[in-house]
């Protein structure tokens, strides 16, 4: 340091200790101001209430197994979506990617290729869509909403064409292992749930502990500032869309195995459930905030509510109404909190 340190230090009006000494308060405040914290409490309340109202049906192991497996697919995709939403983007194509990847994988399996080569082709199909999304958004500066609305249509149409509009279910010699990967369980927990748990931990580390994760937040907070200070904005944005498509493709391969078949309509409407999960978990659609745990807990809350409604005898066709209302409610909540901050 060639600034005159002797002169600077004694004259300083604040000491390093007082500058650094506010850690505990911040963590406690951060907990209370985190949406995912309140969602966790809401989830806890729901579970307690349902366990009292429906002790046999709700708090059975079977129901726990079903609920966790059902939200695992959404949760895995919601993690990828979180990365995109943090940058201030959106990916509406995830539902169609599920259909496209499922059919691509199914076509390979039906042609009697091995489970891993078929899965690899499926993953590549998903990454291809992610590449198109990411390139157009990051490098050509097109609106993420419009681009991914376009690929939503394109990927679904490719799925229909590729499947010949037929259900694919003769999965060849590797059918058993392929169907086990998506539909089986390890230690009585469904395989996709394991993947969700591991992915959530990995995403939490990526988002909080790596420069790449921090750049996502920086881009969502102030893209020009990030660019000016040397963050490779375009590359990071492209990678976020690739990551989202990759998580979607993994979920799609497992979902295909769980279903034991591939139909081109698979994943229709998933984008809404996925986006709802991330937003309920505290991601801001304007960019700059969101987290891995939020995506996990948001997906869990939606599924528990859906499950509870079914148990309460509410027609499952009402599901869309609830999910849609939840998105609006979560955004409303965010705006109210934002207003209070200002």
């Amino acid at each position, binding site marked *: *340091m*060639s*600034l*005159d*340190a002797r002169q*600077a*230090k004694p*004259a*300083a*009006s*604040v*000491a*390093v200790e007082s*500058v*650094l000494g*506010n*850690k505990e308060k*911040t963590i406690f405040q951060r907990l209370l101001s985190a949406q995912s914290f309140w969602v966790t409490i809401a989830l806890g309340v729901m579970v307690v209430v349902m366990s009292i109202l429906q002790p046999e049906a709700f708090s059975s192991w079977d129901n726990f197994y079903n609920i966790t497996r059902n939200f695992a697919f959404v949760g895995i995709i919601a993690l990828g979506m979180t990365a995109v939403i943090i940058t201030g983007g959106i990916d509406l194509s995830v539902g169609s990617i599920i259909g496209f990847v499922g059919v691509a994988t199914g076509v390979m399996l039906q042609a009697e290729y091995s489970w891993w080569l078929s899965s690899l082709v499926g993953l590549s199909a998903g990454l291809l869509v992610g590449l198109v999304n990411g390139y157009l958004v990051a490098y050509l500066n097109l609106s993420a909403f419009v681009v991914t609305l376009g690929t939503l249509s394109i990927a679904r149409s490719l799925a229909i064409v590729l499947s010949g509009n037929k259900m694919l279910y003769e999965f060849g010699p590797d059918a058993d292992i392929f169907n086990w990967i998506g539909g089986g369980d390890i230690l009585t927990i469904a395989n996709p749930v394991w993947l969700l748990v591991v992915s959530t931990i990995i995403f939490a*580390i990526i988002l*909080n*502990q*790596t*420069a790449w994760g*921090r750049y996502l*937040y*920086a881009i*969502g*907070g*102030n893209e*020009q*500032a*990030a*660019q*000016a*200070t*040397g*963050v490779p904005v375009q590359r990071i944005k492209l990678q976020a869309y690739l990551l989202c498509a990759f998580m979607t493709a993994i979920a799609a391969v497992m979902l295909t195995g769980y279903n034991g078949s591939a139909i081109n309509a698979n994943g229709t409407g998933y984008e809404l459930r996925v986006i709802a999960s991330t937003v309920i978990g505290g991601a801001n659609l304007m960019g*700059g*905030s969101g987290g891995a745990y939020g995506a996990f807990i948001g997906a869990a809350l939606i599924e528990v509510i859906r499950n509870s409604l079914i148990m309460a005898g509410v027609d499952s066709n009402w599901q869309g109404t609830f999910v849609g209302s939840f998105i609006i409610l979560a955004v409303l909540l965010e705006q109210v909190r934002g207003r209070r*901050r200002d």
Partner: protein
Amino acid sequence: MPVLELRNISKNFGAIRALNGVDLSLDPGEVLGLMGDNGAGKSTIVKIIAGNFLPTGGEIFVDGEHVQFSKPLDARQKGIEVVYQDLALCNNLTAAANVFLGRELKRGIGPFQFLDHARMIKKAGELFVELKSETRPRDLVVQMSGGQRQAVAIARTRLTEPKVVLMDEPTAAISVRQVAEVLDLIRRLRDAGHAVVLISHRMPDVFAVADRVAVMRRGSKVADKLISKSSPEEVTGLITGAIDVA
């Protein structure tokens, strides 16, 4: 030899000619005041030197070496640091995260590189103390005052030993006491041998710390002279166009 030299730099934004054949040179340890009306092209010069834009024409030399900056990192590697007019901060990140944005301190665990939060917070805290700012490294920028935000933007330039520090309107959004501190900081940078370009609308600031003043008008440099050979009245005339060139 000048530490930084611009030769015949021009910049077009489509049909707009923002800079028109500008020559500028800067010696080590020199403070240059760069003045001019809104839209005169001051920020554009800064952004070209900082690697945000490529010039449409002309050449840049650092320590006599011809350089071409296609991105901010290139300029930084040649020892050029910038405090942008809009401060270029991310409101949703902490002060420490902003200070280290784009050059995070990391520690390796196996093949992976993780952020070294503790070291960044400590270092940022030290820089704020050095700047006599009551900015806390863990606070989010969104909650900060203008002076604290300024301290964050300036602290960034102190991560390395830059040859040139460019400050675009660093005193525009802060209190009188903080202005004095920023001017003090500029003097200390100069005493340590760094060259500083101070862009400011405030005549008293420039006349308090600058050795030389250059005046821009509509994309051209219309004056470049020692502070001791000029006066606020003359500079005002040059900025408004009442005096054509000097």
